């Protein structure tokens, strides 16, 4: 990461240097996924690397390039610091390699609390209530949802996020895991069901502001703006916590905007939360690197970063009072209270599918292709 995020992580690392005198050189890049493999192949890996996707980290772990955490940290300490789901996400074959630094929560529905109070709308706690609210909005001549899927050559990830959320809520975490590891085919009925539930919202011209064409051509960062103003374009918007950076500048974060977790569908599956995040892993086994990894798993860097805003910590025991706004406090609470945490599936699948045919398939589906054809195409593209 570069820019503002780099400044924040450098601030979070500052106490470490003060305490130990070990200088940390942080090299930011916006071409991480291409640069890191080249450096590793040429025998010049960084001591530590921060991975935005655990998939690439797992590749290096399987090749034996990474140092397992258990060589210098006790499992008990790790378990005290992180929830089991996060430890598992940073493990390969049950050996932990990753220390999670940052989390993003994807399962958030953004809304305008002033509009909700003025019109007497209630926060839905189940999927059916959410659809009932949508229908009520339609009957009042309003449009419930704003959806923006355009994201340059990454267009489609918004759609995959929706399907992943619905998969977790209908089929549950076990089937979800099988889906990621291709133990069930991509065109399994469970996936088709999830895609169709997404379609019931996104392809419903009454539900989505501007309909399908608008959903496909609106940049993902722009669509949240429809929530605001005297006569909003829409009343609900599902997006991760990072969308906060795209809010209009004249928005009062305490009054004009709020979030609730995307409701459950099947009560048996509880309330699952879809996450993404950044994880540190260690290439070179030096005493300094060990110390830094231990520091990253401690509370200090998480507390510093939490205070700087625009950040959620995956670590346990971070005082919610440290977050600078009610909004981020609420997001941290949603993350902490989750029954089940699962990582963004498309980031875990092989690139050809996860950031390839799955993305483009969702674009095709929203554009009108039927779920069966789209899913069969994706299934056929899965690398052997």
């Amino acid at each position, binding site marked *: 990461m570069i820019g503002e995020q780099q400044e924040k992580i450098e601030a979070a690392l500052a106490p470490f240097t003060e305490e130990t005198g070990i200088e940390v050189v942080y090299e930011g890049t916006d071409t991480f996924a*291409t640069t890191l493999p080249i450096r590793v192949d040429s025998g010049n890996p960084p001591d530590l690397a921060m991975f935005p996707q655990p998939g690439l980290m797992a590749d290096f772990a399987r090749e034996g390039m990474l140092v397992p955490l258990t060589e210098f940290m006790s499992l008990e300490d790790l378990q005290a610091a992180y929830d089991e789901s996060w430890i598992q996400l940073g493990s390969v074959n049950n050996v932990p390699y990753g220390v999670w630094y940052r989390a993003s929560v994807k399962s958030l529905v953004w809304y305008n609390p002033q509009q909700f109070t003025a019109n007497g709308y209630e926060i839905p706690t189940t999927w059916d209530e959410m659809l009932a609210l949508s229908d009520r909005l339609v009957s009042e001549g309003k449009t419930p949802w704003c959806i923006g899927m355009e994201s*340059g*050559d*990454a*267009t*489609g990830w918004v759609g995959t996020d929706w399907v992943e959320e619905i998969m977790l809520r209908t089929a549950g975490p076990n089937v979800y895991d099988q889906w990621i590891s291709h133990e069930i085919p991509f065109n399994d009925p469970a996936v088709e069901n999830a895609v169709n539930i997404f379609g019931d919202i996104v392809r419903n011209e009454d539900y989505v*502001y*501007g*309909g399908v*064409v*608008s959903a*496909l*051509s*609106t940049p993902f960062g722009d669509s949240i703006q429809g929530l605001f103003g005297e006569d909003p*374009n829409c009343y609900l918007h599902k997006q991760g916590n990072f969308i906060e950076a795209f809010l209009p500048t004249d928005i009062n974060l305490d009054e004009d905007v709020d979030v609730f977790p995307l409701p459950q569908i099947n009560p048996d599956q509880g309330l699952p939360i879809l996450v993404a995040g950044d994880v540190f892993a260690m290439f070179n086994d030096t005493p300094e690197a060990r110390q830094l990894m231990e520091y990253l798993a401690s509370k200090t860097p998480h507390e510093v970063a939490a205070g700087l805003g625009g950040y959620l910590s995956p670590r346990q025991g971070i005082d919610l009072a440290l977050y600078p706004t009610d909004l981020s406090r609420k997001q941290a609470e949603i993350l902490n209270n989750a029954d089940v945490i699962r990582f963004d599936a498309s980031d875990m699948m*092989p*690139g*050809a599918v996860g*950031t*390839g045919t799955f993305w*483009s398939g969702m*674009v095709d589906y929203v*554009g009108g292709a039927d779920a069966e054809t789209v899913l069969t*195409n994706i299934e056929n593209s899965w*690398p052997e």
Partner: protein
Amino acid sequence: MMEFWTRLLNVVLAIAIGCGGVIGLFYLANLAINALPKPWNQRLLPWVYISPALLLLSAYLILPTVQTFYLSFLDGRSQNFVGLKNYIFAFTDRAMLIAFKNNLLWLVLVTGISVSLGLIIAVLVDKVRYEPIIKSLIFLPMAISFVGASVIWKFMYAYKPAGDDQIGVLNALLVNFGFEPVGWVVEQSVNNFALIAIMIWLYTGFAMVILSSAVKGIPEEVIEAARIDGANSWQIFWRITIPMIRSTILVVSTTIIILVLKVFDIVFVMTGGNYGTEVIASRMIKEMFNYRNFGRGSAIAIVLLILIIPVMISNIRRFRTQEKLR
């Protein structure tokens, strides 16, 4: 301050030693060749002089091509030999078939329209008083990169739902005349044409400038003679102008064909290959860098190379015959 001067000295020394070294090398090679017996020195001399260029060419052009060809027979991680599998993929995959179909559409429309439009403008503005102004205006887009042009056209095609303020020029016009806004880039019935229009906008000026100079090269006497024989403008255009500038038309067309085969920036910026707008080169970039499947990416690159070779050969042949005529 001291550091600056030592640095400067270093740079100057590096340049002097580098350039001097190369000159010295050539000088020594020349001496050595001249020392050789008579028939050999004349035969070897040209090779000595082109050897640096040959070395560079093989390092940056020939070796990578051979490497790509080799990789195209290996799997995604370049570890195991997979035979023709990547090529079978390149000619049967659904996305690739769409890419081939779209590339054909691009070839026909971009080449056809930009060359004929360029020719028409070149003939129409010939000897018009405002000719330089009109020509510069049409040539102007040539100075913009593909990516820059795509960004400009994103604003032309921008879509907002009906009822919103339209920020896209085309949709603002449509709404003004009482029509519904169109998702130019998203709707599959129009999006390929919308992208193709960008390249036509970029390259009509190029075709026009070259064809215009060819039109001006037609001897005045020929046209006068035709007029005396009673030919009208239409007949002059078809029977004299076109035949006389035929070779220029072909050169312009082949140049544009090669450019179109390689097109990817416009597609990448405007749609990322979504909504059925994929072309061969954008698919190659995706396979290579997004999916990190080096085998498939290389196979597509080789297919592209093979498609371009005949056009290049015909271009070079025509250039040679033209040079002979001079």
